[in-house]
Every structure is written in C-alpha cells, then in structure tokens.
C-alpha cells in the first residue's frame, strides 16, 4: 500500500474546496490555501496522509477554531474568547489549589495533601444522534480515557442528557431522525453498560427536555478521577518509545472529528456511517488496570507521558504528545482488527480503548509485560525524536513528513463577525388562581423535573463503594449533588453537581450565569465549597453571526460568574454546529444554546453532608434569597403554553455571601435539609423536599423575601436564582439566623403528610397530600 499524492499545487480556490469536500476534510478555503502555500514552498504536493493529518489537527473538535479565533462583536475585536474571558478569570483568581488547568486532557485540582482530583466533561452529540447506544457508550469510554490520560483513576461518571420530549409526536419527526424516546433509551443503555461494566459509578447527572433537540440530542459525559500527587508526569523525552496499548485498530470512527464540524442532515446516515463505533468496556478496564500498574509499580511511573486516543485517533494523540520533540511513527506496527486498511486510515482511525504512553527504552519490556498480564495488547509503534518533525513510516518508507510547528501553530485564525441583540419579551402576566395544586403536579410531571428513577436504577452508583450521598435521597427525592469519599482513611469528600437551563437560551448571558449559579448552589446544598467549574458549550453554527454573538455573551458570563463566585474554570469543551434542517429546507435550525456547568467541590467532613429530604415535623423552614419577577423560561409558563417575561439574572455578590454563610451554618450542623429552587421555583422545591421525607410543610408566601410581586403564581413559580429552602431545628434557629443574617427568612415549618401554602391574601392556595405530589413526580418515566 502506497500513499497517494494529492495534487493541490496550482489549483483554484474552488478546486481546493472540492478536494476538501471529496476527502471529507472539512477544511475551509482559507485553510486549504494556507496548506497550498506551505506545500508550494516545499515544492511538492502533500500525500493523502499528510492532508488527513492537517484536517484532523485543524478540526474544530481539536483546536476549537471558534473559541481561539478572532470575533468582531459590537465594535470589539476579541482575540481568542477562551483566553480573554474564561481562562483570564481563572488566572486572575490564581487559586493555589489549581494544579493543571486548561492544559491537559483533564483539569487537575488538589484534593488533600496526598491526592489530586482530575475532572473532565465532554460532549458526544453527533455519534449519539446516529447510534444512541454506541454513541453514548463510547462517549463515556472517551471521557474516562481523558481522565486516564492524565494518569488518574476514574471514580465517578456523570452524564447530562438533552432530548426532545419523550411524547414528541412521531408524525412530526424530521426524516432520518430517531424518536426521542428511542434515543433516550439507547443513550441510557449505552452509559449504563459502559460505566457498569468498567466498574465506575454513575452517581450524578441530569436531563433537559426541549423540542429544539429533536434533530440534535445532546450527550454530555463527565468523569472525575483521583491521582496521587507525585504520579503525574507529562514530558515525553527524545528517545522514548511510543507504546500503543489496548484495542486493535479498525475503520471505526474514521472522520468522526471532521464530521463533528459539519451539520447533520438526512444524508448524514449514509455519509457518516464510519463515524459510529461501539465500545468495549471490558477492554478499557484492562487498559486501565495495566496503566495503573505501570504508574504504581515503582516510585516513579514507568512512562514519561501518557495520553488517550480520542478524536483524531493516533494522529491527534501522538501529534500532540510529540509537539515539543518530534516523533517518528511506524504505522505498519499498529495491530489491526482486519486487513486492508490504508495507512491514513490507521493513522486517523478512532478505534476505541487505546492509550498512548511515552516509555523510556529501559522500561519498555516491563510495560509491555504489564499489559500482557492484563490480557491486553501493547506494542511499540514509534519513537520520540528531537527534530520537531512528525514523520510517518510504512514498511520502511516515509509516507509523510510535517513540521510540528506548522502543524500545530500554522492554522489560520478564523475571523468571524458576531451580532446579538437580546430580545426582551413582555411578561404575559397571567391571571392568578385560587388553587395551584394541579399546576405544581403538572410541573412535577414535566419530563425535566420528573423522577429519573427509571434511569438511576439502571446505573450502578455504588460500585467502588465511595458514594456517600446518592442520586435519590431520603425516601425518594431528587438529590442536588453527589458526594464521594475517595480515600477510605479520610472523611474528606468530593461534591459534584451540574447546572444548565436551555429554557433560558433567549438571554445567553443570563442563561450562562444561571447555569453557573445552579451548579454552585447544587454543590453548596450538599456541603460543597472551594468549587472548581467545567464549562461545556453545545451551540449552533458559529459561522452565523447571531449564534456566535450569543456565544460571546455566554462566554462573558462565564468570566463574570467565575470571578464573582471565586470559582475558577479548570477545563472545558465545546460542540458547535448542532443544527438540523427540516424537510430539506435551506435554513437550518439551531438547538437551544446549551451550557452545562459542572461544579466540583470539596467537603472537609462527609459526616456533615446534607440531603434535601425534610427530616422531622416541627422543624422550621427558611428561604434564602429573593424571589423576583423573573418568569421568563419558567416551567410554569411552559405548562401554561405562555411565553415571555424576564430571564432570571444573578446578583453574584449577594449570592456568594449567602452561599458562604449557608456553608458555615452546615459546618456547625445547623442544617437538617437543604434544597435549591430551580425548575418550578419555590413551590416545586418545597414539594420535592416534602415527598423526599414523606412529610409535609406549611409555608406562608407573605413571609417570602421578594420584590413587589403581587401575584401568587409568580412567588410560587418564579425561577429566580440563588435561592435555597432550608430545614432548621427550632432550638438551633437563633444560631442559624445569626449566621445567615438578612439572607434567610423563616417562612413556615415541617408538618405531616401535606404541603399547605398560604397565599398573599392569607388564604390557602395549595393544599396537597404529599403522596399525590410524589405520584405526579413518579408517573412520567414509569417505563
């Protein structure tokens, strides 16, 4: 098999674009021309494998062209959004506990004086749209490998999933699209099988439902890992051998990365079948066991660097690892699943369950032996050099040679224009009602809020025996965060939570602020503090100015929220081009702009962790935070088919103060239960706390701190941020009030069996049996 030359010299722009399209390179005209100029200087045409390498390395997935490019927005020239906002906030905060942020496969922060935490969240949207089971499974497998790629051991899987509502009318489905219920079942099964088989607990996550995801479901897979402080290495040296461990290479997922940079259409099924893979969790478990042994066999790891094969396969993993040195790769040494692969296919295949290790020559035999003992393959497939060149060999012949510098730095910056105007929609100001029992039940039954027990019971959230606070709390209620105790001889714990709300997408700045606030308050609810954040954007086509403008707004919010909460971002990822065309229409539709913020906090003593179920009748109920006229994107309006209103904002200074005070009160054991108000507002939070404890609550809306609200429904269902409901014992009330000060107000107490709410005019406007509320919450996903 020989590498082909692809003639690009002397070609016109149009012809170059045709080449890009023909080989599924997803390179644009500027990039193709830059390549042309580069090869012009070399005086030769590129080989197919070289062109593929550039396509992979320069893909949106690998370099985040949009985030690192230049954006013109409202008279401003933003050079590299990521650096100018998100990373800038992290740098400004300069937290001493941030160890490696935004540089490696996963963000690393300290846990205690012996261990560090590694955290990563990724999206696997496009593959999951085509094959939900395989796509979601390999999404989990991929993010586990990201954490393994910094040498850590995965201890938690967390997944946030977005679909169209499961009762979406089948007749309305666009062609070539799977029904959301089928997607959801497949995705859940994929995550379940990968996590459970590998022995990694899936104890945290979330769901969002919105019609806008009908063509593009979103699958966010996250992983938390733990690594002894002295075991992190990331410096491949010239002379080190490249060891490829794990699964064999086939045609799996070829062009998966460049495919992620294209919009989906009904044709996707045909052109992208190579992008689909099915994971093999058992293989990955073997690789994990092997690499941990190689890490811990002696004082120092037997390898000098490690990384995973993810998007772009060997080309990205090896190319990135040898960036500073140079590498020579013998592609004929890569073990194959079957014969007949072209060298370029071997090079960019995204076959799963493979890790790359840089191993000093003296350790090679020992490392290979370790993997053999784990029943998995490991082979030397190349070596690190010092010529700063990427050289590809096949059967002794050079089939590609590229400068590392041009490969990694040569990519032309994209320059794009962005424009976004927030359109405030007038509040519909619905008439008030006398009885809101059915409205609360309607929201409890809405898919985003409803019980996910059907999902949670499929995931093993106990394996590894580290899960302290679990997804279903009390006698059955939705937990805010999950708490892990990673080291058995210490009570210190990790708290993991998420925040997102695609219904706020109309105001991307406040949508992002709300996501940060929600992730923070969920974490604080269980006792978390010293919080690190991860950002994950799923967006529409950034080449369209309105989409990009909205993205800039959200990124700015990340900066402001991060500084305000003093919570640095440590890692992030983006999935753009989530658009779909309906019925062959030319205009594509974007998904609702979705930012998932994952918060990773610490709790010094897990014995102080708090759950959300009310514990005892007679205890007092407090609310923290103000309720405002912020009904935009609310679940109440959704169930009433109403639209408009202000999207909730965040008063960061005040929120931070209240959260700190709440944490302080928890550390003094003053809090029996704590739950945040999110979808469905105060009313739904209260209902959830009641049925989780199988008790009741009597609360008075007249006592709720608020801003001139005259309607009961707004007090009950406004989704204002930074609010908590807290249960406190009577005898501890004074001390609690002293710590919280103005932030907390008493609004009622815990009773038996019923949720009773007194309205603004002094009459009862909710009088519901707890068990009826629970039934409403449980029935939706009674699959």
């Amino acid at each position, binding site marked *: 098999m020989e590498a082909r030359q692809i003639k690009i010299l002397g070609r016109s722009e149009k012809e170059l674009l045709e080449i890009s399209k023909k080989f599924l390179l997803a390179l644009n005209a500027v990039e193709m021309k830059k390549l042309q100029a580069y090869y012009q200087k070399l005086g030769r045409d590129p080989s197919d494998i070289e062109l593929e390498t550039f396509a992979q390395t320069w893909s949106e997935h690998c370099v985040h062209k949009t985030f690192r490019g230049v954006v013109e927005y409202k008279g401003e020239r933003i050079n590299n959004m990521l650096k100018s906002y998100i990373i800038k906030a992290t740098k400004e905060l300069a937290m001493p506990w941030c160890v490696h942020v935004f540089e490696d496969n996963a963000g690393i922060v300290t846990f205690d004086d012996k261990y560090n935490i590694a955290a990563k969240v990724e999206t696997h949207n496009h593959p999951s749209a085509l*094959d939900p089971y395989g796509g979601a499974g390999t999404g989990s497998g991929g993010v586990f490998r990201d954490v393994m790629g910094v040498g850590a051991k995965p201890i938690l899987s967390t997944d946030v999933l977005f679909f169209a509502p499961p009762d979406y009318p089948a007749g309305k489905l666009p062609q070539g699209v799977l029904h959301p*219920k089928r997607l959801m079942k497949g995705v859940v099964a994929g995550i379940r099988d990968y996590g459970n088989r590998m022995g990694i607990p899936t104890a945290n996550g979330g769901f969002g439902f919105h019609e806008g995801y009908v063509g593009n479901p979103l699958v966010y897979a996250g992983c938390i890992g733990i690594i002894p402080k002295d075991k992190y290495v990331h410096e491949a040296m010239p002379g080190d051998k490249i060891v490829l461990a794990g699964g064999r290479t086939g045609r799996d997922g070829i062009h998966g990365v460049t495919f992620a940079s294209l919009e989906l259409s009904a044709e996707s099924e045909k052109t992208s079948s190579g992008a689909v893979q099915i994971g*093999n969790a058992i293989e990955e478990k073997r690789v994990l066991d092997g690499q941990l042994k190689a890490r811990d066999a002696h004082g120092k790891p037997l390898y000098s660097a490690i990384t995973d094969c993810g998007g772009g396969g060997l080309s990205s993993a090896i190319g990135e690892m040898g960036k500073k040195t140079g590498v020579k790769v013998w592609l004929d040494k890569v073990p194959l699943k079957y014969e007949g692969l072209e060298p370029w296919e071997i090079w960019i295949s995204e076959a799963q369950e493979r890790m790359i290790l840089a191993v000093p020559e003296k350790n090679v035999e020992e490392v290979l032996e370790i993997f053999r003992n784990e029943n998995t393959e490991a082979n030397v497939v190349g070596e690190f050099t010092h010529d700063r060149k990427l050289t590809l060999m096949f059967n002794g012949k050079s089939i590609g040679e590229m400068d590392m510098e041009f490969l990694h730095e040569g990519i032309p910056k994209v320059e794009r224009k962005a424009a976004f105007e927030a359109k405030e929609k007038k509040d519909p100001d619905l008439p008030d009602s006398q009885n809101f029992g059915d409205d609360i039940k309607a929201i409890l039954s809405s898919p985003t809020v409803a019980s996910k027990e059907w999902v949670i019971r499929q995931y093993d959230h106990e394996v590894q025996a580290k899960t302290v606070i679990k997804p279903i709390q009390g006698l059955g209620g939705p937990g805010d965060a999950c708490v892990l105790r990673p080291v058995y001889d210490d009570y210190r714990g990790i708290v993991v939570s998420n925040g997102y709300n695609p219904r706020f997408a109309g105001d991307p700045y406040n949508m992002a602020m709300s996501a940060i606030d929600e992730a923070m308050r969920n974490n604080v609810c269980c006792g978390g503090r010293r919080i690190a954040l991860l950002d994950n954007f799923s967006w529409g086509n950034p080449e369209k100015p309105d989409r990009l403008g909205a993205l800039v707004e959200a990124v700015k919010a990340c900066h402001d929220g991060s500084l305000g909460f003093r919570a640095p971002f440590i890692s992030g990822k983006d999935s753009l081009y989530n658009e779909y065309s309906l019925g062959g229409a030319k205009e594509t539709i974007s998904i609702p702009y979705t930012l998932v913020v994952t918060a990773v906090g610490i709790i010094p003593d897990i014995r102080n962790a708090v759950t959300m179920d009310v514990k005892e009748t007679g205890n007092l109920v407090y609310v923290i935070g103000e309720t405002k006229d912020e009904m935009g994107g609310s679940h109440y309006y959704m169930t009433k088919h109403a639209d408009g209103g202000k999207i909730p904002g965040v008063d960061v200074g005040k929120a931070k103060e209240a959260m700190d005070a709440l944490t302080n009160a928890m550390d003094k054991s003053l809090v029996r239960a704590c739950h945040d108000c999110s979808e469905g507002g105060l009313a739904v939070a209260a209902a959830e706390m009641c049925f989780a404890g199988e008790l009741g609550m009597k609360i008075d809306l007249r006592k709720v701190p608020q801003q001139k609200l005259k309607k009961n429904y707004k007090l009950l269902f406004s989704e204002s941020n930074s609010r908590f409901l807290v249960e406190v014992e009577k005898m501890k009330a004074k001390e609690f009030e002293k710590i919280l000060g103005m932030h907390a107000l008493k609004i009622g107490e815990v009773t038996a069996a019923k949720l009773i709410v007194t309205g603004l005019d002094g009459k009862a406007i909710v009088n519901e049996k707890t068990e009826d509320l629970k039934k409403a919450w449980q029935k939706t996903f009674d699959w």
Partner: protein
Amino acid sequence: MWVVGVGYRQGYRDPMGENTKSDILGLGPYNINDVRTLQTYVIDGEIEVTEAEKIGKELLADGIMQYFSFSRFSGAGEHVKKLAGAKNAWVVEVFFRPGVMDPVGLSVAKAIGILGVRKVKSVRTGTTYVIRGELDESEIKAICEKCLANGLIQTYTYRRI
C-alpha cells in the same frame, strides 16, 4: 456455522420482550399480543454437536430461567421455529452490519476458547424477536425500522412462521 438462541422459559418474564412490546405500542396502535426475545449467537467454526451443546449450556444460557437451542446456521429465522413454539408470529432477526464492532461477540469467542472448545473463528451476536399478533408486512417493516434495528449499524430480516 452454528447458531445458538437463548430465550426465557415459559412462565418466566422476558423483560426485554416486554420492553420491546411497549416500545412498539409507543409507535402506534399495532395489534400485537406479545413479544419474546432470544439472544442469538452465530458461531463460525468447525465444532461438534456436543461442543455446541456445551457452549449453550455452560456459557450462554442460565439453566434455571432460560432455555437454549442450537442448530446449524441455515439462514435467518430457521432455528427459531421449533423452540419458540410460536405459530402465527413474525420472527425478526437483528444483527450488526459487517465491520461494526461486536464486543459481546468478542468476549463470547474468548470464553468459548477458555471452555476448551478450539477452532472457533468468530462469534456474532444478534437478537431474535418473536412477535405474535395481527400485523401485515408493511407494519412489521415499519416496526423493524423504527424500533428494532438501527439501519446504520444493523441489518434485519423478518419472516412469518
């Protein structure tokens, strides 16, 4: 080539079958009575009858709740006839397309080797659905495409028995 089918004995619940039935009914008001499923393994290799039996008994089927049957692979649906005890049913078989990774198949092939049965080249896994009810061909086709098989990675065949 041998094919081994593993299903639940009469009197035991078939959760996957029940689930599939509810999924099918979620698509529309189809006239179906029940759905039973069989995990299906196509074993490529020159093995003896006793070995095929051993594989079914010791590796693939749970002796208490499940039964298994095996036969030489003679084409889709053939092996199901005698074991499902079903008449007036559609038999749908779903397999991965060639080239799609089949991790369960790989593990089964490995396990067969550990059982002491050599000469097995590969194992492909699939699912056989036995759907009883009043359905015409266009309906079963729609069910296959919308519910049982993902055309991108799987192929399906159906026949009436």
